[in-house]
C-alpha cells in the first residue's frame, strides 16, 4: 500500500472516475438507442409502409402505359466497387399494365436499342426497384429514359429530366464537376 495514494487528498473528479470508470461503457447503449428511429424508418421504407421511396417523382406516361416513379433514397448515388456509382429508384406500374408489361428499364441517356435499355427493375408490378449506374461524366442536364417492354414484344419509351428525377444526383454531379 503506497502512501501517496492515501495521503494525497484525491480530487472529487478522480473519485468519480475511479468509482464509475468501469460503468462508463453503459453509455455505448446510446448508439443503438440513437439509431433506433432510423432503424424503424428503414424497416418501414423496405416494407413499403412509407410509400415507394423517400421521394416520389410522380406518374410518368410511357406510351399506352404509365408508372409511378420514386427515388428510393433522397440522396446522391453510392459507390459500389467495380460497378461505379449506383442510384436506386423504385416504381409501381399502372393497374392496366400489371399483366401486359414484361419488363421496365431505366437508363441515363436514350438507349440505342432494347438490348441496351439499361437497368432492369426487380420486384413485382406493385413495387419494384433497380440500381442504375450513374457514370461520373453524366451532365447535369441529362435525361432519364424509361423503357417498357410488353409481353407481345412491343416497346415504349419516355424520358424525364434527371433534375426532376433526382435533384440530389444533379447536385452531386454539379459538385464533383461533370468530368469530360
Amino acid at each position, binding site marked *: 500500500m503506497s502512501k501517496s495514494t492515501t495521503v494525497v487528498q484525491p480530487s472529487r473528479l478522480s*473519485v468519480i472516475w475511479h468509482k464509475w470508470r468501469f460503468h462508463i461503457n453503459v453509455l*455505448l*447503449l446510446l448508439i443503438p438507442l440513437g439509431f433506433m428511429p432510423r432503424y424503424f424508418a428503414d424497416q418501414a421504407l423496405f416494407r413499403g409502409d412509407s410509400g415507394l421511396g423517400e421521394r416520389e417523382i410522380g406518374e410518368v406516361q410511357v406510351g399506352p402505359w404509365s408508372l409511378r416513379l420514386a427515388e428510393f433514397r433522397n440522396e446522391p448515388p453510392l459507390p459500389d466497387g467495380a460497378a461505379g456509382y449506383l442510384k436506386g429508384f423504385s416504381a*409501381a406500374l399502372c393497374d392496366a399494365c400489371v399483366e401486359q408489361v*414484361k419488363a421496365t428499364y431505366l437508363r441515363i441517356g436514350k438507349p440505342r436499342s432494347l438490348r441496351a435499355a439499361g437497368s432492369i*427493375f426487380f420486384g413485382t408490378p406493385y*413495387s*419494384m426497384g433497380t440500381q442504375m449506374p450513374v457514370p461520373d461524366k453524366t451532365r447535369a442536364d441529362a435525361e432519364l429514359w424509361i423503357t417498357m417492354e410488353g409481353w407481345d414484344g412491343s416497346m415504349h419509351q419516355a424520358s424525364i429530366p434527371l433534375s426532376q428525377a433526382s435533384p440530389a444526383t444533379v447536385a452531386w454531379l454539379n459538385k464533383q464537376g461533370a468530368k469530360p
Partner: protein
Amino acid sequence: MSKKSRSKLWFLVHSWLALPIWFFVLIVCVTGTLAVVSQEIVWLVNPQMRATQPSDDAPLLGYDQIISAIKTAEPQLLVERISRPDESHFALEVNVSQPDGRSVTVYVNPYTGVIQGTAPDFNFRAFTRALHGWWLVPFTNGYSWGWYLVSFLALPMLASLVTGLVVYKRFWKGFFSPTLRLRHGARIFWGDFHRLSGIWSIWFIAVISVTAVWFLIEAILSDNHISISSEPVIAAMSREGVPLSADGSPPPRVSLDHAIEIAQQRIPGFEASTINLPGNAYSHLDIRGRGWYPLMFQSATLNPYSGEVAASRLLSDRTSLEFVTESMRPLHTGDFGGLWIKLIWFFFGLVLSMMVLSGLLIWTKRTALATANALKREHKKQRGQAQPALHREPSEVHL
C-alpha cells in the same frame, strides 16, 4: 518472472479483457441469446404463426396447391417467396407484394393453405438480430461500423477463454469434482459459479468467438472487395430464353412442384425449403434446401418457362475453405438442427451472459472487500486521517 507473478499477470489480463466493456458484452450476449430463439418467441406470442394440423392424417400441401390457395383467397397478392421453416410446428412464411405497394410476410397453414395472418410490423426476430449483429448501426456503404464494433468483441472473448483456462489451475479437475459453494458468501459463490460454468462452456465460448472472428474477417474482406467465393455469377436469361406471347399476356411457367422434381433429379436427397420466384421476366426461379450436411444450403436455378436448369450449387461445388466459412453462421446461431440445438445454444447463451455478470460481481465484491481492508489498515495507521481509498486498484493488490 516468477511463476506466481506470471499467473498474476494472466489474472490481470483476464480481468481487464471484459471489465471496461462489461455492459456492452453483456447486452451483446443477451441479445444473441434471444436471437437464437427469436423465431420461437414470435411463435409463442403469435398464434397465427403456428401450423395446426386439421386432422392427424392431413398431408402437407405441395407448393402449387399453396400458391393456388393464396390466389383463391387473395387474387391480387403476388407471391415473391415461400419458405418452409425447419420445424414442422411453424406455418409457412410467404412473402407477398400487395397492390398498395407494401411487401409483407403472411403465415400460411401448410396443411390447408389458409392465410392465417400477416406478420406483425415489428419484426422481433429481425430486430434482435440487428441489435445483436450490428448494434442497429445502418449499412450505408459496405458493412456497418456497428458490425465491426460487435464482431471485434470476438477477440477479447477468445482471449478471455484462453487466459481463464491459464489462470484456472488444473481446470479439468473441475469436471470431476464440481464445486459450487452456496453458504460461503456471495464472493465465493460467484467465483465458483464463474469457474464451473466456464469449464462447461469451453466448447461454446470457443464456437461463438471463433465464428465471430470470421464475421469480422468477412466484413474486412467484403469492404476491401476481396472475394473467396467459387460461386459463378448466374447471368440473366437471354431474350430468346423468354417466350413471346401473341396475345400480350404472360406465358405459362412450369409448376413449382415440377420444378422441384427437376431439381431433385439434379441434386439427390434435395429437400426444397425456400422457393424464390423470379424477380422479373428475365430472372430465374431459385429453389433452395438442405442436403445431408445440415450447415449448408444447396440450390438449383431454373428457367421458369422451360424448367431447364441454368445452374446448381451443390455441397460438392464448394471448396474446402467454403465448407468452413459457410458453416460459420449456422454454428454461431445454432440454427441447423431444429429446436433442440437451438435450446442448447440458448442455454449456453444464458450461461455466457451470466459469466459476464458473475465476472463483474467477483470484481466488485473483491473491490469492496479490498476497500474495506484498506480502510481498516489506514485507520490503524493514521487514526482519523483515512480517506476512502476508492481510486486504488484492488485487483492489483488482492489476487
